[in-house]
């Protein structure tokens, strides 16, 4: 996924400014930055939901903006941060919506696999509206898994926000697994510690601009974080050598 000088305006306001960056297949890329930095808009732009005012987005030499909707749906899965919880379908039906472009038996296989991966098999017949927000989040992730054919692009906007520790760990594992299968995984995160521990690449946004892109350890330098966030951070060393970044206490 390659972005070339992408700028996005919403309601006349510039939200993303001249972003040029690319995400590699087989890697997990984290989009980081303070509130209103443009993380969600960047993900929505990559998903083809927002048309850039300038610049181009390419997936394997194909322009994402002009790509046929059905082709884009088979290649790019998007898990939004917020979704309608009051939809009148079961979990299985919700997940099956992601697999509608597949043949019946392939779709059933993809849906069963996604339900199992997200530990939702036992909830498959439950109405989506009766689930907790965390369970709904997993169902929406399962739908994206059933949707894209590897190698594809999996976009997740704050996927851990509603999840407890166990399921956060499960989803991080799924994300890593999809990257190993050859998918391009791009995930927006607020938790810099999780980002530095889980992502291969980091894009740091500030006020709609790309502040830095590269391996998390180099992108998330203390002086840069202090400048972008206007706050101080502490950097801890994990046993595996990776950094763990937490907000500094007063």
């Amino acid at each position: 996924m390659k972005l070339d000088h992408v700028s996005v305006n919403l309601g006349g306001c510039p939200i993303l400014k001249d972003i040029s960056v690319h995400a590699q297949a087989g890697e997990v890329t984290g989009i980081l930055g303070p509130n209103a930095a443009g993380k969600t808009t960047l993900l929505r732009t990559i998903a083809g939901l927002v048309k850039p005012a300038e610049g181009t987005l390419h997936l394997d030499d194909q322009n994402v903006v002009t790509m046929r909707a059905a082709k884009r749906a088979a290649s790019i899965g998007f898990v939004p941060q917020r979704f309608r919880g009051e939809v009148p379908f079961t979990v299985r039906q919700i997940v099956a919506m992601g697999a509608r472009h597949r043949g019946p038996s392939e779709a059933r296989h993809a849906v069963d696999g996604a339900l199992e991966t997200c530990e939702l098999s036992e909830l498959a017949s439950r109405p989506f509206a009766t689930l907790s927000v965390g369970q709904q989040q997993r169902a929406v992730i399962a739908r994206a898994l059933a949707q894209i054919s590897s190698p594809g692009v999996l976009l997740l906007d704050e996927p851990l926000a509603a999840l407890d520790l166990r399921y956060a760990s499960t989803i991080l594992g799924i994300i890593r697994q999809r990257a190993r299968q050859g998918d391009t995984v791009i995930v927006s995160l607020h938790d810099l510690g999780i980002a530095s521990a889980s992502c291969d690449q980091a894009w740091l946004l500030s006020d709609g601009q790309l502040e830095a892109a590269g391996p998390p350890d180099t992108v998330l330098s203390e002086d840069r974080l202090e400048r972008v966030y206007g706050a101080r951070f502490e950097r801890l060393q994990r046993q595996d050598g990776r950094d763990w970044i937490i907000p500094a206490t007063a």
Partner: protein
Amino acid sequence: MSMAATSITVHGPHASRTVLPLIALLLLAVGICVLRYAIDRAPGGGVTLAWPEADWAVFRRTSIFAGLIVGGGLGLAGGLMQSLLRNPLASPYLLGVSSGAGLGVMAAMAIAASAGMVSAATVDWSVPAMLGAIGALVVVLALGRRNGWPDPVTVLLSGVVVATICAGGMMLLQHMVPMDVRGRFLTWMMGTLPEIASSPQLILAGVVVLGGIVASVMMSGWLDASLLGDDEARTLGVPIGPLRLVLLGVAGMVTAVTVAMAGPIGFVGLIAPHVARRTVGHSHVVLLPATVLVGVVIVVGADAARQAIDLGSGRLPIGVLTILAGGPVFLWLLRREVRSLEA
């Protein structure tokens, strides 16, 4: 289109919960049509059930065929409107179609009155009704756009305002025409299934409604996904803007055909989707055929009921029956829905 056509329910583990009620609705609709064919009020006032004599059979068949078109059309249009606008209170008439048709008929009556033609009992008002309905539909869809495509809230607001403007126009014209013309117009507004109609008129209306049903069911998978929200639907490959434009156009055209044929018949398009949802669930591949069948049951059933009701003032207009019976039924459904959500 193959993507849109894929069902998410009938292939699932609960097919019997949706298909069997759909078959039951089909049998009920057939039964109601048979009842309408047989029911009659004897000259003495009693209700009889018997196959009509050959001379009368053609009128009954015409009335039943019109009931199939009007009931099925209003049911379909109501189901489409409520899903496309994600609003359980949406009805086909929110597109301004009935008011537009009313304005068309009232304008035609005013012109005919000035030419001394309105007293003719055989005047067919379906053409001005159709023109008025399509005119209002085009205006609502043109004004209800956002980023080039119909937007639910903007369509609703545009529909309400266009309907109000048309109502104002109707009142102005009613004020200007003689009393007998006013009476004729009010009778038209109450809605009546025709017992006399030309074959081309019935066939054309039938083709429009049938085409609408087929097109809508083919897009049922997309309609399911559209309930998730615009962004999610688009990421699933649903062309949400064109889908809304096409299916609002279908709903509007189908409604225009029904209003041109029978006048505005209230509540059918509002209630039928609610009854259908409680019967077969929310998956559009079965929901839309179910709303069509419920619409047929309501309209043909009301037409059968009006044969049996004698208030000494002639047969009741069908629109009066559907509103007086449909209103309480809708309130009952609403209370059941609210109770099911209560802890």
